[in-house]
């Protein structure tokens, strides 16, 4: 069945360092991947989405490239900011059009 795997539950970085959050997926359906960000006590908000293989998509300094060959959609940013501290969820549109959510990665950026 459809599934999303986020291997890191917690990532702690120093401000200014690059960010990379991993996301891999499994699906037999057409591929549509999403990254949602959830700041403390707020609702999740869409950060990025893509269905195009090998095309980089960018928003708010973050970028991700869908690689169907490796079933990956890793989230990256060149330089972390304190305000990037949040929960990040990778999600997949499943065969019944529902979102299949990963377990989430908590990103903490320290000064």
């Amino acid at each position, binding site marked *: 069945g459809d599934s999303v795997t986020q291997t890191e539950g917690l990532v702690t970085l120093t401000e200014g360092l690059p960010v990379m959050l991993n996301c891999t997926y499994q699906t037999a359906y057409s591929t549509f991947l999403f990254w949602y960000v959830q700041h403390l006590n707020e*609702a999740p908000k*869409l950060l990025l989405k893509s269905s195009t293989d090998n095309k980089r998509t960018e928003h708010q300094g973050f970028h991700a490239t869908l690689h169907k060959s490796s079933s990956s959609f890793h989230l990256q940013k060149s330089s972390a900011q304190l305000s990037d501290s949040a929960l990040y969820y990778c999600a997949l549109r499943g065969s019944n059009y529902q979102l299949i*959510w990963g377990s989430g990665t908590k990103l903490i950026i320290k000064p």
Partner: protein
Amino acid sequence: EAGVTQSPRYAVLQEGQAVSFWCDPISGHDTLYWYQQPRDQGPQLLVYFRDEAVIDNSQLPSDRFSAVRPKGTNSTLKIQSAKQGDTATYLCASSPDSNSGNTLYFGEGSRLIVV
């Protein structure tokens, strides 16, 4: 454009009490979702509607949870006889088209504590 509106924002109940959460989606969005998000966990789908029809409620604990969207606009999620395990934030989300790229727009959530 107004976002997804939920109320109440907070509720504290004793076990056995009932509560209803209300959601007003973004105008024109035909698909509405209810998620349960326990503390430190990701959102877990409870039920979703396309217009007034329930598309999937397989994850809704049917003995105590119910959800309706009678006119295909606002929706109500009701929990009867609440249990401590129901403590979570209940998120409502809407989407313009469930057959599209499924961008969900979330409300701020209703935080439930059952003591």
